[in-house]
């Protein structure tokens, strides 16, 4: 019989230092980006990039991504990689629509959550009980969810008025609301197109205009997640399963139970995101509605270093790029090229200051090319706009993936008693 792995614990030298970006620096960066965006808007005349309408759409598109990301966070914090978020989201869209058009939108929301959770139960069984490779199981769930919803659509939606095998009948809306007074004041401010003030007004106005109650709930779930995971005993135990499940087991924590709970909650979040897509972002279920947002949510989670705050920021960024696709895409993206070019100039300067000359040179060259591109065209092809969210995802991941730290036991198989 084999002995367990024999390496003794390595003595870590103390004082590795923080790898996270500190809060003041982050705020400074955000402020800087806002200023730059404002400048770019004035130069390019693309008013759309910071209008309240754009921001409002951005928020609306950020929600499903953020919810998927939160789902990923819950799951990965317990040590289970969840690639199946996309499939669980699809289930959420379908179940949300199916219950929604029959019994009202709020019931739809509940069923959407349940639908996602059902998919998660399968994922949990495969990964926690049977120790299937997490990614393989996630991909299997995606395939299964796609097949299942197509089949079910044929049975249900196809025979309904205004329905077809690829689309559900329309669902009533949950309603939207504004903050009276504030919203209209911010909008007026935004229309004035003043430097920086209007942009900030647009940003804040977008957050308070045309809000769906589900949006508010989704946004509230971010601090709630933080509080539950970092400030309660339940959260501590869940996180310990993702950091060192053997240690948790030795202290009497039922690791299987917490992993199951975490994965099911994760599916619930993804399902909620799906329900949002079919009930709020549109009012029908559409085949292919999720369009990869489950994966973008994962990217947001990675970008946010597996913390809810960073995740929200990432989701916001991706939601914004997604919204460009919907509203005046070609001119807005064109303006953003200028923004990117300016950011790259700063980037090159920063790299040079850090004495990393080759990367600085490459960045400078890319920046110059972008300037040329901006000047020589008036707008970008529609296809580029539709690809923008995905390109941005790739870029963001490339720049940040290495300095991040995921839960230590994430993705690793766990079997009770394996510490022996």
């Amino acid at each position, binding site marked *: *019989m*084999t*002995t367990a792995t024999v390496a003794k614990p390595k003595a870590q030298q103390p004082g590795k230092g923080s790898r996270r970006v500190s809060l003041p620096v982050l705020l400074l960066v955000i402020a800087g980006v806002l200023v730059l965006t404002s400048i770019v808007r004035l130069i390019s005349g693309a008013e759309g990039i910071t209008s309240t309408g754009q921001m409002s759409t951005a928020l609306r598109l950020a929600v499903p991504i953020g919810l998927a990301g939160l789902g990923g966070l819950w799951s990965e914090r317990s040590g289970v990689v969840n*690639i199946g978020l996309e499939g669980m989201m699809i289930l959420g869209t379908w179940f949300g629509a199916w219950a929604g058009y029959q019994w009202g939108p709020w019931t739809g929301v509940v069923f959407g959550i349940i639908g996602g959770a059902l998919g998660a139960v*399968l994922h949990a*069984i*495969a990964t926690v009980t*049977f*120790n*299937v*490779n997490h*990614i*393989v*199981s996630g*991909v*299997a*769930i*995606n*395939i*299964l*969810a*796609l*097949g*299942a919803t*197509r*089949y079910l659509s*044929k*049975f249900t939606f196809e025979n309904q008025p205004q329905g077809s095998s690829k689309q559900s009948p329309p669902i009533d809306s949950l309603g939207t609301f504004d903050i009276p007074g504030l919203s209209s004041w911010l909008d007026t401010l935004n229309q004035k197109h003043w430097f920086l003030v209007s942009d900030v007004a647009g940003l804040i106005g977008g957050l308070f205009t045309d809000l769906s109650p589900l949006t508010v709930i989704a946004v509230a779930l971010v601090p709630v997640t933080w509080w539950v995971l970092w400030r309660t005993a339940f959260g501590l135990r869940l996180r310990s399963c993702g950091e060192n499940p053997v240690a948790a087991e030795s202290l009497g924590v039922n690791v299987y139970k917490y992993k199951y709970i975490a994965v099911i909650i994760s599916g619930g979040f993804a399902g909620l995101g799906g329900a949002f897509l079919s009930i709020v972002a549109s009012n029908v279920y559409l085949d292919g509605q999720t*369009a*990869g947002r489950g*994966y973008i949510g*994962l*990217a947001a989670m*990675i970008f946010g270093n597996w913390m809810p705050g960073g995740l929200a920021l990432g989701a916001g960024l991706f939601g914004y790029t997604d919204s460009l696709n919907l509203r005046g895409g070609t001119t807005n993206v064109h303006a953003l090229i200028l923004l990117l070019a300016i950011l790259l100039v700063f980037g090159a300067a920063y790299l040079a200051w850090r004495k990393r000359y080759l990367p600085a040179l490459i960045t400078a060259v890319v920046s110059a090319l972008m300037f040329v591109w901006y000047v020589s065209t008036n707008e970008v*092809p*529609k*296809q*580029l706009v*539709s*690809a923008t969210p*995905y*390109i941005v*995802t*790739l870029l963001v*991941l*490339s*720049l940040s*993936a*290495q300095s991040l730290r995921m839960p230590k036991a994430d993705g690793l198989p766990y079997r009770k008693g394996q510490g*022996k």
Partner: protein
Amino acid sequence: MKKFDKERALLAVAGPVLALVAAIVLTSIVLIASGKNPFEPYRLMLEQVGFSDIQVLIINQASLYYIAALAVALGFRMNLFNIGVDGQYRLAAMMTAVVGAHVALPSFLQVPMLLLVGLLTGAFWAGIAGVLKVTRGVSEVVSTIMLNAIATSVIGYLTLTDNFGVLVGDNITTGVMKESGWVPGINLGADVGEIYGLVFLAVLLGIGYWLVLNRTRFGFDLRATGASETAAAASGVDAKKMVFTAMLISGGVAGLSGLPLLLGDSHTYALTFPAGLGFTAIGIALLGRNNPGGIALAALLWAFLDKASPALDYATPVAYEKEIATIMQGLIVFAVVISYEAVRQWGLRRQQKRVGAELAAAAAGNNNHKKEVAA
């Protein structure tokens, strides 16, 4: 040693058999829940196999699936998840179609050139994900999926009539390819159909896959890296180079997977070119346990489900939804991943016990043998 071999054969078969049985049972439950006869659809589909035109369709479709699944399986052996096969093969097919429509070399040069174009395009697209993983540590799962979506946009852009697109009726295509690039197939008659010539390419690739992985040094290194990255690194494998090379090869093979259809039948790339091949390929690779024989069987099974199920819509007296085949495919994939893992772990434990028992029996005859008690 004999008993180990028999047991291993049994174990190898147990996984897929269990999965298929489970999938069939679950699908039957779905059928019952939908108020339909649980046995009839299977009978109808199996009936279809007898028709030679369906057989040709199945073989042709299977060849596409096979090549794509090989690409995925190669990644899996390395513990790399090339989910981007979808984008890679579509982009490769489009590029090949464009080149084939504008360049006309004599046949014996044209066809290899077109194959090369497909291979290189696929490799390039996968290579982007490989570079990102190796230099920046970006997970290839997310990056290949993003690249799939970007590939759609790229194709959309390049097929604009301003660029390479040619409008045929309502469809955007890339124009008809030059005839020297058309690959003839095996014509079995007008009623039956034609088997793609490049089916043989699929067979060759399968043999190549097995040879490279099991009989070359590179293949050994690749499998070692997939089994234990740390052990492979300690043994001398350059992990980064290996990851990058594996992604390139996987992408290259993926790029070839659309070509049997392209060069043998459609001779143009239209936006109606089959999509979703990449995800299906993942399921097939999983079912086939990443080995070329298993994948062949899995590909045939999948193609069978695909091609035999349309008949369900027209069955009399009761019609069945042909999507039942889609559910069945999804259930198979899911059942497969669970059953393989369960069987594998059971097999390992059994082997450990047996070896322990054998050694103990040998030691019983030896007085001085010190046995190691689990400490």
